[in-house]
């Protein structure tokens, strides 16, 4: 990576008004990384607040659905606030303080990043505004309530497709006008430099822990590490720990929605082309004129027409590969993990779990696979209940659909 570029990807495509703030952030990030006081503060928060290290759980019964491969779950779902998003937010909140800013803004899709940002704002005594597409405020209503309880202001975005991409537009507009006192806590490895590099850095703890943990239990490296890829932050955090271990397969799973062939999906690598979106060059779902195409996924956190620029480069160089997982495949994996391990995953994470089932079958019984369980599924209970035909008014077990009962 040079100057915020990954091959032809990344860079900075932003209004000039934001250049000074990005330069300031870049300088603060680089200074902080080298400052033992900052690192100690971050490590202490990870330990005492987030609850790291989180376990690497061997999923014995789930593995039976994965061609017999031994599948391990990296338990980001056990972090405080319920997903990996807190790793990045605590780092950026510390930087916000160091830059002397008193307000944080964020975009959110699933609401997990918004909740994490609202949480850090409460912890550090900062003001917090979260932009969320109106469509997403409906499908993730629980997280909207959480953010409000934490003292954040939640602004529903009614422009465009009313999802994550529009929330990012609105957060950027806020930031241009408020940049003196406000830090924009971007929630994934997208956007203008230095965001992709910085967000990866704050999530690299996932891969560092996972590598140590797998060596401790298996005495060897895994054959593959897999993760869901929305913007790509949980995947980049896990991948980064194994980047130099070239024998380890890195595979990301994007949202295939109703199926890539239907056009209703968020599979940038299967259905997109290189372009510029939200400040960086990367793979983008767009039409022949460069207008952003609508994305679709059952999962709000995967429903985004762009992807982190480093993923674009890993894709082109072949170091990592990416496959789509449909809504139906993800929901099947969601049900199986719930029934076999007693762990209800976020629907985003369920895309990675479906991937583990697929790659486990490819690699065979003696293989070892780590899948990032990026978040827990509490926020998705209503969506899942609707999918499986569970009447939320009734609680008797025979209300469960056959798929749910059998864990199919």
């Amino acid at each position: 990576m040079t100057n915020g570029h990954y091959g032809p990807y990344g860079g900075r495509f932003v209004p000039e008004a934001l250049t000074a703030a990005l330069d300031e952030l870049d300088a603060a990030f680089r200074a902080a990384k080298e400052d033992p006081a900052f690192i100690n503060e971050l490590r202490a928060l990870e330990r005492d607040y987030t609850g790291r290290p989180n376990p690497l759980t061997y999923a014995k019964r789930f593995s039976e659905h994965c061609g017999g491969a031994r599948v391990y779950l990296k338990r980001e779902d056990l972090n405080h606030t319920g997903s990996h998003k807190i790793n990045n937010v605590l780092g950026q909140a510390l930087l916000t303080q160091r830059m002397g800013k008193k307000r944080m803004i964020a975009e959110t899709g699933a609401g997990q990043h918004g909740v994490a940002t609202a949480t850090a704002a409460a912890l550090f005594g900062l003001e917090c505004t979260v932009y969320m597409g109106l469509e997403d405020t409906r499908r993730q209503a629980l997280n909207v309530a959480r953010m409000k309880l934490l003292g954040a202001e939640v602004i529903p975005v009614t422009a465009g497709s009313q999802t994550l991409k529009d929330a990012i537009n609105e957060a950027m507009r806020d930031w241009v006008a408020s940049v003196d006192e406000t830090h924009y806590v971007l929630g994934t490895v997208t956007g203008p430099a230095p965001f992709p590099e910085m967000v990866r850095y704050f999530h690299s703890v996932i891969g560092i822990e996972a590598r140590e943990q797998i060596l401790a239990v298996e005495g060897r490296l895994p054959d593959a590490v897999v993760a869901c890829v929305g913007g790509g932050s949980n995947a980049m955090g896990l991948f980064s720990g194994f980047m130099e271990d070239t024998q380890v397969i890195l595979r990301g799973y994007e949202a295939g929605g109703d199926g890539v062939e239907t056009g209703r999906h968020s599979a940038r690598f299967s259905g997109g082309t290189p372009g510029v979106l939200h400040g960086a060059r990367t793979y983008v779902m767009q039409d022949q004129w460069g207008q952003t195409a609508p994305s679709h996924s059952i999962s709000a956190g995967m429903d985004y027409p762009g992807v982190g620029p480093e993923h674009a480069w890993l894709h082109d160089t072949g170091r990592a590969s990416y496959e789509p997982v449909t809504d139906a495949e993800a929901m099947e994996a969601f049900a199986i993990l719930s029934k076999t391990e007693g762990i209800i995953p976020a629907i985003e994470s369920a895309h990675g779990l479906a991937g583990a089932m697929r790659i486990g079958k490819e690699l065979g019984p003696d293989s070892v696979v780590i899948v990032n369980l990026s978040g827990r599924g509490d926020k998705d209970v209503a969506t899942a209940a609707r999918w499986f035909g569970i009447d939320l008014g009734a609680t008797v077990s025979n209300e469960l659909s056959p798929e749910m009962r059998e864990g199919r």
Partner: protein
Amino acid sequence: MTRHVSEAFATAKAENRAALIGYLPAGFPNPEQSVKLINAMVASGVDIIEVGLPYSDPLMDGPVIQQAVDQALAAGTTTDVVLNIVKQVVDAGAIAVVMSYWNPIERFGVEEFAAGLEAAGGSGVIAPDLTPEEAGDWSVASDAHAIDRILMVAPSSTDARITAIVGVTSGFVYAASTMGVTGARTTVSSGAHELVARTRAVTSLPIAVGLGVSTGDQAAEIAAYADGVIVGSAFVRRVLDAASDEAAIEAVSDLAKELAAGVRR
């Protein structure tokens, strides 16, 4: 024959006034009407017309322009249509530049876009999200087709940054009056004056001020220290508020006359 922005600035200077630059999205509210609106703006005193290329994610624009580009996109305004609109208004006598976010240009093909705009008689391009660091290919293509590269400076730009920006700019420098998105404001930030002075110190290019300007008084105030005054959302607002196509044409003409008088005060 293409007329360049330099001609408009030279004329304004000879008349001891600032140039008036007016923005309207191509295809808003539909392609045919947008040509009529632009022609009316030019006939009523707009020296340079900034033809907006509608984009799905206009993150530097406020709600007024967002609404307009949504209408333009819904009316089928593709890049081809935009270039055709440029050709029509240039043929009618306008000096035209295109205002576009970067992705549609990159998708069209950087070389192809420069060639297409040259063929249409366009004079330059303003790409608000293209930074000098990313402008390498565009510099080559725009030079090859005599298209001016109009970059922006902002109140937050350091002096070193302004020097780097004007180094790759031609035609004129776009000075953003304020930290924020497009949209009319009741007062024009005092930061604009200082920004123009800092930019003037490192370039002999004309400097035009935009963002938030909507009235003849504001135009006059800026014309006292800048070479050009840029007005966008205020024109769009008039069209959005008009009861009919004819009323919209009259409304943008009235505003253009008010602003043209402002830059001559």
